[in-house]
């Protein structure tokens, strides 16, 4: 594959492990460090990095962001009742976080890993098993190096969502967070993530969804313009479990969202959706792999991007059906709405099917706002900008519809409305 050797700066980081992480965590980190070293850094020639330049993600330091551009603490989901856990510039902020516990849910900071022995079977495990169909060196490096993170275990149904709020104060912070989430059999948990966590933020989230458990994940990235981010979501689904993940990406200079979902038990459901909004210096990449390794499971990938003024959207998605995963129902759609001629959408939709009794479909389109629809709305009196806004929201509706919680869906719609209102013409 001709992978470049790790650059000296990255190598130095790999050598400098945080102290005081004895026991299983240290072992997991050590193994990950060896993995990361062997994998090297991602490069433009790698199969899934052709559309996205990993440069800013692998550079020695975070990009410098002018002080004037440092974000306020406005929160995407301010109105939502949740257990709030705050990270600022990649470090847990206990003072800003809710102290109260959430019944049925255990939350432990990564630094206190010895208190969460259960996480031993999860930390770095799903990442290590998720280098399919290609390696994910940034994720391995994160497992080795992550400075902070949360270990969350839901034993029963959580009454409120757990919300991780990311804030940024520094113009050069380089955050690296690693979260583990485990849902015991029959448990329910909604995990919300919101905000820009650092000038450069790299996250890995490993999610183990037990039998019949229900995991919902709603994430809002942005609306800061300058930061870069790479996220990795690894999930393993047991029988009859449900996994739904929705990501809104509004702005951000470079965002790479990777997901690897292994459907390991029969009758499970995995839905991944995204709405990306970019205007100008914006490069957003969803790289999603769903692996059907059990019978009778359903997966959906619904990714929509609205792009203008040179913004670039990337979608790489695969539905992989193993020979024994009969009765698989797989669906994948990726679409871009190009609001001008400068915007571009690069897509690599893939089906890889080894079972014979399956129903799988995929589609990918890029196009402008439909002139006939626009005229129809204007002929009824809607001003052009309002008509366009309505059509942009309509374009995104299929992705937003994947959010199961009405209050979170409404909050996301408000964020979309707000973005569209600020980016007219």
């Amino acid at each position: 594959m001709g992978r470049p050797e790790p650059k000296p700066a990255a190598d130095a980081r790999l050598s400098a492990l945080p102290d005081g992480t004895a026991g299983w965590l240290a072992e997991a980190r050590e193994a990950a460090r060896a993995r990361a070293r062997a994998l090297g850094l991602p490069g433009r020639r790698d199969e899934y990095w052709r559309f996205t330049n990993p440069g800013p993600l692998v550079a020695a330091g975070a990009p410098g962001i002018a002080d004037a551009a440092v974000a306020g603490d406005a929160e995407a989901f301010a109105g939502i009742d949740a257990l709030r856990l705050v990270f600022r510039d990649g470090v847990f902020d206990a003072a800003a976080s809710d102290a109260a516990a959430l019944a049925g849910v255990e939350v432990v900071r990564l630094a206190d890993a010895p208190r969460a022995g259960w996480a031993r079977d999860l930390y770095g495990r799903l990442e290590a098993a998720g280098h399919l169909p290609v390696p994910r060196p940034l994720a391995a490096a994160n497992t080795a190096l992550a400075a902070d993170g949360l270990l969350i275990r839901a034993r029963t149904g959580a009454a409120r969502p757990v919300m991780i709020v990311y804030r940024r104060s520094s113009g050069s912070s380089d955050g690296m967070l690693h979260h583990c989430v485990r849902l015991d059999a029959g448990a329910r948990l909604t995990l919300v993530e919101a905000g820009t966590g650092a000038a450069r933020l790299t996250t890995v989230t490993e999610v183990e969804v037990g039998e019949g458990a229900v995991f919902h994940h709603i994430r809002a990235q942005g609306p800061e313009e300058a930061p870069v981010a790479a996220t990795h979501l690894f999930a393993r689904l047991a029988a009859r479990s449900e996994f739904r993940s929705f990501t809104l990406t509004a702005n951000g200079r470079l965002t790479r969202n990777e997901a690897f979902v292994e459907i390991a038990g029969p009758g499970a459901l995995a839905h991944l959706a995204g709405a990306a909004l970019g205007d100008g210096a914006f490069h957003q990449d969803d790289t999603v792999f769903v692996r059907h390794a059990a019978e009778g499971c359903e997966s959906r990938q619904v990714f929509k991007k609205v792009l203008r003024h040179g913004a670039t959207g990337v979608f790489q998605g695969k539905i992989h059906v193993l020979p024994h995963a009969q009765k698989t129902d797989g669906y994948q759609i990726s679409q871009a709405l190009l609001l001008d001629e400068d915007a571009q959408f690069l897509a690599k939709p893939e089906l890889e099917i080894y079972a014979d009794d399956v129903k799988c479909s995929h589609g990918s389109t890029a196009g402008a706002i439909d002139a006939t629809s626009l005229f129809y709305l204007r002929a009824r009196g809607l001003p052009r900008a309002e008509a366009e806004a309505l059509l942009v929201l309509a374009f995104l509706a299929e992705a937003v519809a994947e959010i199961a919680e009405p209050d979170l869906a409404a909050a996301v719609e408000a964020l979309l409305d707000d973005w569209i209102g600020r980016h007219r013409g």
Partner: protein
Amino acid sequence: MLEINDLRVELEDGGKAILKGVDLTVKAGEVHAIMGPNGSGKSTLSYVLAGREGYVVTGGGATLDGDDLLAMEPEARAAAGLFLAFQYPVEIPGVGNMTFLRTALNAQRKARGEPEVSAAEFLRIVRDKARALAIDAEMLKRPVNVGFSGGEKKRNEILQMAVLEPRMCILDETDSGLDVDAMRLVAEGVNRLRDAGRGFLVITHYQRLLDHIRPDIVHIMADGRIVKTGGPGLALEVEQNGYADILAEVA
């Protein structure tokens, strides 16, 4: 109210001439019908009046209450009171029928300096008008025209007209695709709106609609021009004899 003078229109793409000097005046309180062979330019006339892109006006003009219609944006024409019931209503997935109609009504009211209609008031207005057109509530919840049958789409156009209460209504083959009962409902919808302040231009191929909506004046359009104008009897003549005689007579 609506005055069209020697209107000449070409397609932007390729420059084909479609309207070759249309003259037509609809006064407030009048109902005019336009009939004419397929491809004679009836829909083109309605689109040009409503402000669709893709046409070049090469001569003449059109005014609504003295204002230059062709210089206005489509939304401004709507706010000024022009309404086109489309021959082919457009499906818009993802946009709810009710959201669309309320946004449209309030946008028009705002443009005219009138207060917006509250959600509750709007709901009451739509329910009333929908009932009269036998449009069920379920249909209103769906995205604009998505999954509507041909006849349902046409009834939805008339519902929009009833809610928006425009002063100059152009109906392009609203009767096509309607069953006999729906045709009567649509005609009643039109007749309810008829008053001294309102004008109608009804494009149709059939006498049947005109049995319900009695036009004051009937025009025949052929090859981009109004070639003959008469009373209601002209429509009956077309129904019985087709266009051959009329076209021969004016040639």
